[in-house]
């Protein structure tokens, strides 16, 4: 029960306009790009006998995973934790008659929840975007095919798993540094390096968590075999590393948080 109540408390704190704008911007930017590309290039998008849903899914997942998810996660987590630093909220937070670990995990869970809600809204937005396109351009034939909702969720679930490592690192950094700039700046620089590693198909990308969302799925942009992505059924090595990095950083951050002296 405490967990639910504290997640509710954390969500109240996130009623912060820049954070809401950030989530909305990410969703809107992807929808705008997908909508515009389909609208302008309708002839190459509309393919007889092939579901346009798969095309819209691949396009949106590629844009989201390669260009958006990491900057979004970096800025979102840095801003969300910064709210606590700015309010000097730790001294009050850690006197609420529950363990520090419970507070730590409720904050983490609320962040994960907001990221998942943003992904969910993105899927809803994509479906709405597809129907709008179909209304304007009936030749796209979205209404002739069943919405592959499971594939949408599966794709974004893989993106989410591949991002967990970055979430762990950024949460750790945001707790350790009191300002917004250091964790956010680190994350953005790391993201640029990640894109470079992925785009040159460098095998090091497999060991670099900021490349994981880019290479975890095949968008036909990179040579994943050359990079060294290996599939093991429903999961691949990159996603497994991502989960492992997440667990290590979260555990480490939790130990430091429960032991630290709260001086501000």
């Amino acid at each position, binding site marked *: 029960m405490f967990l639910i109540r504290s997640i509710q408390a954390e969500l109240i704190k996130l009623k912060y306009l820049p954070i809401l704008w950030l989530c909305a911007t990410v969703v809107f930017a992807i929808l705008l790009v997908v909508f515009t590309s389909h609208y302008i290039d309708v002839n190459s998008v509309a393919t007889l006998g092939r579901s346009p849903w798969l095309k819209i899914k691949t396009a949106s997942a590629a844009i989201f995973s390669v260009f958006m998810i990491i900057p979004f996660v970096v800025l979102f987590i840095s801003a969300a934790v910064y*709210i606590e630093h700015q309010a000097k*909220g730790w001294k009050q937070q850690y006197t609420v*008659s529950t363990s520090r670990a419970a507070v730590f995990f409720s904050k983490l869970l609320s962040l994960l929840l907001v990221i998942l809600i943003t992904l969910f809204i993105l899927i809803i937005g994509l479906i709405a975007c597809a129907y709008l396109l179909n209304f304007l351009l009936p030749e796209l034939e979205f209404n002739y095919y069943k919405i592959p909702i499971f594939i949408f969720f599966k794709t974004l679930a893989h993106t989410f798993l591949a991002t967990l490592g970055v979430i762990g690192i950024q949460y750790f950094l945001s707790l350790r540094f009191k300002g917004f700039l250091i964790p956010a700046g680190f994350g953005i620089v790391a993201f640029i390096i990640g894109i470079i590693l992925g785009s040159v198909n460098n095998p090091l990308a497999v060991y670099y968590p900021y490349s994981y969302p880019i290479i975890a799925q095949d968008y036909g942009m990179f040579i994943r075999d050359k990079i060294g992505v290996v599939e093991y059924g429903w999961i691949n090595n990159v996603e497994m590393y991502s989960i492992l990095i997440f667990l290590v950083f979260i555990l480490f951050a939790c130990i430091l948080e429960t032991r630290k002296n709260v001086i501000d």
Partner: protein
Amino acid sequence: MTAIQLEHLFFGYRKDEFILNDVNLTVPKGSIYGFLGANGAGKTTSLRLVLGLLKAQRGTIYVNGTDTKQAYPEQLRTIGSMIENASLYPHLSAKDNLRIWSKYFNISTQRIDEVLELVSLTEAKKKKTEAFSTGMKQRLGLAIALLHDPEILILDEPTNGLDPLGIIDLRNLLHRLRDEGKTILLSSHMLTEVEKLVTRIGILKDGKIVFEGSMNELQALKQQNLEILLRVDEQQKAFNLIDAKYQTQLEDRYIKLSVTHERELPVIVKKLVGEGIAVYEIIHQRSDLEKLFLSVNKEL
């Protein structure tokens, strides 16, 4: 019965460099305890230790008779606190700020309205706290501390930023809370305010408690260090006659001197009268707490 007890408490950020050095302190239940000390004396550090925000190297802290190490963090439920400035989320309204803590403590929204009323912030409950004055922020911090109706209130410099009217309101509120049976431990450097509030006092200097007792005990301590003003007819002659050990000074029409005990005073007066000097007036300078505080601090 004691609400809070610190026993042989040591704390430092570095090994063997102690900010608190063998601090012993007893806050009786139902009292308003004034915790005094200059900046950097270790007041806030002591309060943070009681709240578990810092961990002591040595010593024991008891809350309601139980060692906090054994009852952490459940015991914190009995304590409401405001350490230094209130922890407020500036982008949220006063009510939303309180809603956050009501979730943690599983408290009804009705209680939020009650505490807002208690600190006279009902009118401003929908206003974002970034637009609050320092005094309003302090009052909202107090509301957060009171939200879960704790037995013990720990307030660090609660009068900071309050205007005179706000200070009077706070004083009345704290008296009311004390009458309801709450124990209040408050630190302050505004000594005149503490004097009117507290039933017991502890003075911390350089990480050590240099005085602990009731206000009367502190006043009695002061009887041993009196400041006297004498008005005489031949001021310069009298000044030369009084021994320099009394730290004599000329102040307008008066000679100011310090005696370690009041029995020295008739001896001085007798000597002056014996030399033919007329003594018109003897004033015992009334010692407010600020002077007492300074004298205790000066002694050690």
